[in-house]
């Protein structure tokens, strides 16, 4: 009986493809836009997630995100080290500066000063050069997106001299780091070097990266650091979340993407709803005939559900494939670098497809269920 339903569905190719297209398109729109939305907001977390070795960030009480931070006196490092449960604490400087390129152009950059001896704070993946090259005088390591921005894709920047705060900076490596929301060029250097590159304020220590000892709950340690030092401490996840919240509060991203996702949903409902209800209306005679030969409404519901499932599955499959393929194809593009499809989003769009089909199925089925079998024979 269900096979008959499928044959009924695919009998009219135009309507069938229309339905599949409608579902596929709205799935694509919803999935892709939600993915972009999540990933653009995720740019607020990259500064945190680029560093994989710490589980707590300590900062001045007024600091909010990696890029809106007030520096602390340098002895704050020792005060944090004194807290019980701290395995190690490393200084981390993160400050904006202006760099002069060999061409004489000016470019805003983010200077990141990593711990002098252990280089904690430097992302793990080095594309070119050696992380230990930072030990050489005046050396910086640039991020891959920054290279493309500053020199173009083709140029090998290693050995290039830049000018930072009237001081020489030589690029000695490229690191694979995800860009921040503003996708400024990031230059990594040693903390003591960074102090000279960043024009002078009295306090320079923007963050302290802390690792909890084994068996210490990061949240408990965060509370302890806050109560003992008076500084603000956040776990890695909390601080990443702070970056996202900051973007939500201060940019139009949620609104813009929200509108697009809603539009995708409305287009999906309209196309699918209209086509599906037209299709069922067209087949109302057949359903009547089925009812006449004794098929119950229960069975008819089942048949329509099967039709919806087939259309949904095919459309959803194509849509999700399209959305993930998009991310995959553009993964090397600097704008989309580090973008990925969180697994929750396809589930969300699956739910959306289900809702679209359920709503349209419900409304178009009503006349079928009410049809009098005798109608067919009139």
């Amino acid at each position, binding site marked *: 009986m269900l096979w008959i339903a499928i044959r009924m569905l695919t009998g009219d190719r135009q309507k069938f493809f229309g339905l599949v297209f409608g579902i596929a398109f709205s799935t694509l729109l919803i999935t892709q836009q939600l993915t972009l939305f999540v990933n653009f907001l995720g740019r607020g977390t990259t500064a945190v997630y680029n560093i994989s070795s710490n589980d707590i960030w300590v900062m001045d009480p007024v600091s909010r995100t990696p890029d809106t931070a007030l520096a602390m006196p340098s002895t704050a490092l020792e005060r944090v080290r004194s807290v019980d449960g701290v395995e190690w604490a490393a200084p981390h400087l993160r400050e904006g500066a202006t760099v002069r390129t060999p061409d004489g152009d000016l470019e805003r950059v983010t200077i990141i000063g990593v711990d002098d001896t252990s280089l904690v704070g430097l992302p793990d993946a080095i594309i070119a050069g050696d992380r230990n090259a930072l030990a050489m005088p005046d050396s910086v390591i640039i991020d891959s997106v920054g290279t493309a921005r500053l020199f173009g894709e083709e140029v090998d920047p290693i050995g290039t001299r830049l000018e930072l705060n009237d001081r020489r900076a030589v690029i000695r490596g490229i690191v694979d780091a995800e860009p921040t929301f503003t996708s400024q060029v990031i230059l990594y250097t040693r903390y003591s070097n960074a102090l000279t590159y960043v024009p002078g304020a009295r306090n320079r220590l923007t963050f302290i990266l802390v690792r909890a000892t084994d068996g210490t709950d990061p949240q408990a340690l965060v509370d302890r650091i806050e109560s003992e030092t008076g500084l603000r401490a956040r776990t890695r996840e909390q601080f990443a979340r702070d970056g996202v919240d900051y973007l939500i509060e201060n940019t139009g991203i949620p609104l813009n993407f929200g509108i697009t996702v809603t539009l995708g949903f409305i287009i999906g409902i309209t196309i699918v709803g209209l086509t599906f209800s037209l299709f069922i209306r067209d087949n109302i005679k057949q359903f009547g005939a089925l009812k006449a030969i004794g098929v119950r409404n229960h069975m008819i519901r089942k048949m329509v559900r099967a039709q919806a499932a087939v259309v949904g*599955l095919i459309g959803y499959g194509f849509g999700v494939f399209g959305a993930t393929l998009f991310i995959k194809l553009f*993964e090397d593009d600097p704008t989309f670098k580090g973008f990925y499809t969180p697994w929750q989003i396809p589930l969300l769009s699956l739910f959306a497809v289900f809702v679209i089909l359920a709503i349209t199925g419900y409304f178009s089925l009503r006349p079928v269920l009410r049809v009098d079998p005798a109608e067919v024979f009139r």
Partner: protein
Amino acid sequence: MARLSFSRQILPLIAVAGLIAAIVFIVTGTPDRAVTDPPETPFRAGGEIAGKPRVAGAGVVEPSSETIAIGTSLSGVVEAVMISPGARVSKGQPLFRVDTRSARARIREGDAAIASARAAIAEARNAEATAARQLALYRSVEDAAAVSRAEVIRAEGDASSARARRQVAEAELANARARRASAATELERSTVRAPIAGEILGVDVRPGETVTAGPGAGGPYVLMGETNPLHVRIDIDEDEVGRVAIGEAAVVSPRGEADTRVDARFVRAEPLVVPKRSLTNQASERVDVRVMQLIFALPDEAAGDFRVGQQVDAFIPAKVDR
């Protein structure tokens, strides 16, 4: 079912394949955000102190005598430098010598003046003796008419003036001796000597260079200090001062070698809380917080791991009560 239907069989298969591909993309594309261990760990508490309340501080290695910046008491051109960096010197050992020619010349001058004063004394003594004999002769004549009264008076005058000339000559000898002694002192002062036994840490003077004496002059020309044992001067943030268990041994690591940990014996706490000096190579020194300075002695066996002036990190036990 003999013929494959595009809509009913091929399309769903493609859709399922697309779905599987999408799942693969999602699984492989999800970034790894797990916390990992860094290739090198920064300075951390190890051993016994790891699980206990503690206070962290940063500091610098210094000689136990503190670093002595040797100056010069005389200005001038350096004639000879007798030591090299790293040498051990005993107390009073010469370090360098400022040009001595003028002092030596004045010594010779003094010697000549002494000789001439001695000659003058000898001559004055002769004259005195002659005058005394003459006077005695006149006095021994009993016949008053034989010697006029005027003769006697003249002879008395001669005797006393000869005595006075001798005294002047003697005073001149004393004067010449004093001047020679002063020249000798100057010769001695032109050699700069080690005030204590210790190690030469730096030499910034070479033969032929000028050195200037006095406050605000150049230098330091030689840096030295007692490096056995070495001390570390640890800065503790003023906020933490109350927590430090004064008197306990500290765990000290040279900067960059977090795995080298030595126990340093407590020596003293500086009574004065001073502004922290940040060793940042900045032209303008930054004063942000005040720090208490604690001095610890490094054990002898760790001497090879530490150098004077090196930065260190330290953990000091905190008070357990409260």
